């Protein structure tokens, strides 16, 4: 890195090339390998990385049927979307209520610390009793687990939203209040629109959490009809046996929706994650 070259409008090619090599060998290679295995015949596995002799898309249809992909996809999408919906409306309002009333009432101050301190409790700590608890309330199904996600996301999301709401001048609410707006109206017409960047962050983090989560479905969802995509991969591990082609086709089917979302919203996702973390 010479000092002079930085000043000129030249691209730093050595670093660019190094980064490209890094991408090819560490990120593209594993995914390429997964794709190759997924489109090959089991007898064509001598050279793992070579292109298939015969393209075999059968693996995908087999995996699709075997794991009951549509149902698992629907379950996962249901959990993710419903969670997203309720998380965004409830958690943001809770954060709003807490931030705006913290100075006025002990109750909200207490609530703030209550939620924030719960961030320190990792899931493994409450896993055993939660399973018992969830059964008592019949939450061991996808509706129950969605509900639990909404509740369990509260500490982190409150934390993120509170940070953002603090920086919105209270004069805005006051103005709306003078116009006769009720708290819910102030929130939905004045505050929530301003919170868009934070909402994006919360949305991405919740989406990633619920879509890719494995532990909670593993301990809570016992009915095979209720399984999520991730859990199904684990459950079918032993049934894929040595048929890696089928297994990898199945893995790719699970990764695909996320990849598609990423390709189209990549910039938005990256900005969202940064905005949340830097706050």
């Amino acid at each position: 890195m010479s000092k002079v070259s930085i000043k000129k409008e030249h691209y730093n090619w050595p670093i660019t090339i190094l980064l490209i090599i890094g991408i090819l060998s560490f990120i593209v290679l594993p995914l390429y390998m997964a794709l190759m295995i997924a489109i090959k015949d089991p007898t064509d596995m001598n050279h793992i990385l070579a292109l298939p002799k015969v393209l075999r898309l059968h693996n995908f249809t087999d995996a699709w049927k075997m794991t009951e992909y549509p149902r698992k996809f629907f379950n996962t999408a249901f959990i993710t979307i419903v969670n997203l919906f309720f998380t965004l409306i409830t958690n943001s309002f809770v954060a709003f209520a807490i931030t705006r009333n913290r100075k006025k009432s002990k109750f909200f101050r207490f609530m703030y610390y209550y939620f924030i301190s719960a961030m320190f409790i990792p899931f493994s700590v409450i896993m055993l009793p939660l399973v018992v608890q969830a059964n008592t309330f019949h939450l061991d199904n996808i509706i129950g687990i969605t509900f639990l996600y909404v509740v369990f996301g509260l500490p982190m999301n409150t934390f993120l939203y509170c940070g953002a709401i603090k920086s919105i001048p209270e004069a805005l609410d006051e103005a709306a209040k003078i116009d006769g707006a009720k708290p819910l109206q102030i929130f939905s017409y004045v505050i929530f629109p301003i919170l868009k960047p934070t909402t994006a962050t919360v949305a991405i983090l919740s989406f990633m959490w619920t879509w890719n989560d494995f532990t909670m479905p593993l301990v809570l969802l016992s009915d095979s009809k209720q399984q999520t995509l991730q859990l199904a991969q684990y459950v079918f591990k032993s049934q894929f046996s040595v048929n890696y082609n089928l297994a990898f086709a199945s893995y790719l089917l699970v990764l695909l929706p996320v990849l598609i979302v990423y390709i189209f919203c990549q910039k938005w996702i990256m900005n969202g994650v940064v905005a949340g973390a830097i706050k």
Partner: protein
Amino acid sequence: MKRIKKRKQAVDPIYYVIVSLMAVLFFAFHTLSFIKGIFYSFTNWKGYGNWSFVGLRNYIHIFADIDTIGAYLFTFRFAIITTILVNVISLLLACALNAKIKFKNTLKAFYFLPYMLGILIVGFIFNYIFANLVPAFGKAFGIQALSTNILGTNYAIWGIIIVTVWSSCAFNTLIYTAGLQSIDTDVYEAADLDGASGWKRFKYITFPLLAPSFTINMVLSAKGYLMVYDQIMAMTDGGPGTSTTSIAVLIYKKGFGGGQFAYQSANAVVLFVIVVAISLLQLRILEKREERLG
């Protein structure tokens, strides 16, 4: 505390209603579970059937149980190594991505991709790489060290670390790049004039300015890695022996499968205390550091 506002403003009841409602739900499913866990830890309940109080027996047991101690040692070792590796690699990547490079946004997008992929499936994919691709490579080039499946050796922990680093670097890199972008280029120009470059510039200028990003990454990393679970279930199932059994895996497997529900509840309580202690300690140290540097 100055009371500037003269009249205490009334709080609209709707705030109370909604916050209380969420708080009650949160209490019932999160906090109550936590409290129940503490309760179970003083019993000999197996998760079903009869039980009785056993006092501190479960806790005393933890300190004499090689399996549990082994799981703690593994988890700490894993968390420390992974935290360091992830942060070093992410910093390097972030610096590289922040340099004057071509295709900047595309490259960044590629490096962030692993964040999107569930670690369970990433674990399955790497499982295959370690079991087939790497040994095939090792044998072809006569490299003894690479010709066995690393997950079946003493170094299985490194297999898990590699996968974790692979999928975690994305997030940390992104945070560091954001931190780097916020650094004013004037600072560098000034440094250039003073003759500071390379390592010196990084050490005295870049790194101190990155302190907030560093704090975030350290805190999030440590907490996440102490809970390592998915990748182990996908790759080694805790083996060979019990050498890659993390605390979270131990709680799951023995808590449900080994008839140690109460005992593992005690273990979970100990884990909680440790996580809180570490997080607080970290925040303190890093905040102090930030103050000093900033």
